[in-house]
């Protein structure tokens, strides 16, 4: 069971807390709990939450984490939950220097959670909410049976990423645009506003009113095709229109809630990890480190920052970008004059001594997410300095290789990987496809094909919720294809796009 801080750890915490405030970090109250390795692995398996609905995949996570630890491959140092108050976990057996590092890192995260716009609409009482979800699921298990509930969760998890990742927040009510459109339609049928009654015939002649009426009617007929516009929140669409049992709908809405809660963390991974790393290194090296702790600190810090060629370390990329921004705004390396200067020597020694770096990064941490962050602040100089490259798989040689170091390609690839959290964009196009209550989805193809076997398995799961045949339009090798699963068989046919 987690323990609260020992007097010694509490003292360390007060110290680090003081430094964090001194540097201007702004966070919710942060509660640290002390746990053993095993407890850490457990909490981590539940995504940081002490209470989660029962499901085998947490067990799988736990198996992988504890094995990783046993083999000495990985060890979780820090874990923090976006909640008010924030909760964070400290490993019981860690040395003081590690505890301080983790605390400083955690305050960085908490500051980010509180201030970054992506998190503004997240549930800050998620700990309670998760516990409620757990209770609800358990109740259904008691009623319906564990096999059925777990099986339904398995199938729903398969659709978990089909939310509107970049929606500002979860939408619970029917599309507000729909109500707006209806109001507009009424207006049109009644004609323009008429100030004086005798003018009506002139302003709204009957032919005009008739044509307006007809237009509205046509639109309504068209609207029978639902959804009216492509719906990215596939889970929401299913909640509204799929023939679900009450317990199924309840579980689906739980999983959708949780998916929305976690979405901002996926969208700000580079910024958030970079921000926390920036602050742990600043706080540790400028304030909290004692002389005899430097080696252990450096060991730990460089361990976190390590890179290998075929993977991007968000901690490393993030911290370097934050430092780069700070330096550029300190030295005035931005704006028209800087952009237009192509004298290398002048650029190299450019320093307007603005000292605006700190202020700038605080502003950036508020208004950006990974996509806009990379899009705005990744510079060619930075990409060269950080040795970024694009890699891909070479089928002929059956190996991964470096494809390109050109700035624009690196940036485009990075952004592509971040768009929609690196997931394909899928929309509901038609809930009454070919007037047979079939479901039609579309994959907005951006140059990458869907993984075929996974797509077919996912269609199966989707079909089991929709209970009628389901279809998805996508592209393979540049050609339009519609995959279909009717409840028994998979099929596919060519379509023109």
């Amino acid at each position, binding site marked *: 069971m987690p323990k609260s801080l020992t007097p010694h750890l509490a003292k360390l915490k007060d110290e680090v807390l003081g430094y964090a405030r001194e540097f201007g970090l702004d966070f919710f109250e942060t509660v640290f709990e002390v746990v053993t390795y095993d407890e850490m692995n*457990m*909490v981590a398996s539940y995504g940081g939450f002490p209470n*989660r609905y*029962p499901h*085998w*995949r*947490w*067990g*799988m996570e*736990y*198996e992988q*984490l504890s094995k990783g630890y046993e083999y000495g491959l990985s060890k979780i140092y820090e874990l923090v939950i976006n909640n008010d108050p924030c909760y964070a976990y400290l490993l019981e057996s860690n040395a003081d220097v590690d505890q301080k590092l983790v605390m400083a890192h955690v305050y960085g995260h908490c500051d980010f959670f509180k201030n970054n716009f992506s998190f503004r609409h997240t549930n800050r009482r998620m700990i309670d909410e998760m516990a409620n979800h757990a209770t609800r699921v358990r109740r259904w298990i008691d009623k319906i049976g564990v096999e059925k509930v777990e099986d339904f969760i*398995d199938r729903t998890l*398969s659709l978990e*990423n089909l939310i509107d990742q970049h929606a500002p927040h979860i939408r619970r009510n029917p599309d507000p645009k729909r109500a707006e459109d209806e109001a507009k339609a009424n207006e049109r049928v009644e004609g323009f506003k008429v100030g004086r009654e005798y003018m009506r015939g002139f302003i709204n002649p009957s032919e005009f009113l008739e044509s307006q009426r007809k237009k509205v009617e046509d639109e309504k007929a068209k609207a029978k095709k639902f959804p009216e516009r492509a719906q990215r929140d596939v889970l929401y669409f299913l909640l509204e229109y799929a023939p679900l049992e009450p317990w199924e709908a309840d579980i689906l809405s739980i999983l959708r809630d949780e998916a929305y809660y976690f979405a901002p963390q*996926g969208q700000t991974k580079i910024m958030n990890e970079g921000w926390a790393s920036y602050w742990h290194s600043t706080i540790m090296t400028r304030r909290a480190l004692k*002389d*005899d702790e*430097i*080696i252990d600190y450096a060991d730990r810090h460089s361990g976190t920052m390590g*890179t*290998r*060629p*075929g*993977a*991007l*370390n968000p901690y490393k*990329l993030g911290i370097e970008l934050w430092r780069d921004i700070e330096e550029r705004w300190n030295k005035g390396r931005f704006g028209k004059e800087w952009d237009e200067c192509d004298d290398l020597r002048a650029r190299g020694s450019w320093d307007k001594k603005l000292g605006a770096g700190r202020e700038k990064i605080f502003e950036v941490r508020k208004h950006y997410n990974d996509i806009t962050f990379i899009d705005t602040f990744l510079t060619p100089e930075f990409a060269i300095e950080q*040795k*970024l*490259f*694009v*890699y*891909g*798989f*070479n089928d002929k*040689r059956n*190996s*991964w*290789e*470096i494809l*390109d*170091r050109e700035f624009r390609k*690196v940036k485009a*690839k990075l952004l592509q990987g971040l768009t929609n*959290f*690196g997931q*394909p964009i*899928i929309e509901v196009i038609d809930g009454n496809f070919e007037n047979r209550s079939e479901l039609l989805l579309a994959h907005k193809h951006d140059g*990458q*094909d*869907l*993984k075929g*076997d*996974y*797509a077919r*398995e*996912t269609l199966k*799961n989707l079909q089991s919720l929709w209970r009628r045949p389901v279809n*998805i339009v996508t592209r393979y090798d540049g050609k339009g294809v519609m995959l279909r699963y009717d409840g028994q068989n998979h099929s596919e046919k060519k379509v023109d796009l």
Partner: protein
Amino acid sequence: MSLKIHQDHARFKAIVRGKIKANLRKYVQKGEMLGKKGKDAISIPIPFIDIPRFKYGHKEQGGVGQGDGEVGQTLGPGQVQPGDGHGQAGQGEGEHALEVDVTLDELAQILGEELQLPNIERRHNEKIVTQRIKYTGINTTGPESLRHFKRTFKQALKRQIATGTYDPKKPVIIPTREDRRYRSYKLQDLPETNAVIIYMMDVSGSMGDEQKEIVRIESFWLDTWLRHQYKGLESRYIIHDAVAREVDRDTFFHTRESGGTMISSAYKLCRDIIQADYPKSAWNIYPFHFSDGDNWSADDTRQCIDMLKNDILPGVNQFAYGQVESPYGSGQFIKDLREAVGDQTNVALSEIADKDAIYNSIKDFLGKGR
């Protein structure tokens, strides 16, 4: 908290077990699994425990990396990690299926349940206790041979920095007596029951690669089961054509000889090994013999049978003979054995036509529970 994750963990394990069971027949036939065998565990690909989603294949997607290297340079194996923002997602290229580590012991249990194998009745239960060293941590004292160099130097570095004697320009670090760190250990007692498997295989010209592969796969499963029944199992390997010799495991599976076949030579060697090293009063003994059923002469076969009846069978738990079908063999030997010793309780005879037959053959061998 602890209770909950253990429930979920148990649930996960039950699912994995179910998947392994459902696919066991396939796993049994496959030789590739043997290659992945670790010391005590084996990793098994489980189809679709990974939750399917609409997603991109990592190979199609590629990504951005960081580091030195020219364009066109190959990234080494293990360097590329699917960039799934979720962290722990998959392992390396195992994209299709999750790889799960299963201990051999557990695998044996599953095998036993699925084939409904009876537990072996042990003839001997004498326990021999062996001791094993387990390294448990770091100590400030200990024998020099157990000195932990990295920790020692780190300690020295810390001390030098703390006392201000560290010079970054001349980074020489000299550990003193107090800096030394040692691995500490505990001795654990391990009880063992003795058992030995004596594998014999005909490696004459008529035994082709496919036949040997079958033997290899089958003996892996026999091994696994017996190891599950007896902690502390020894294995000996005999190959023979016209003469027999004892070899190590690797040679056993990879030798190809030509020439005739004198099965009696192997049985003779087997008998001698038992007499020399494995007194029947203290050991559970399992001679397993594989051949394609062709022997040199009826006379030699008679010798084999005599030896079995008089010397081998009386002292062993079970003698098993597996006849692997080959295009060259007459397959006569199993008939002779069946006639002569087929009714003995501690004899198991099995014909293995192809890889598909391994599954049932295991049952022939182990189904008697001896």
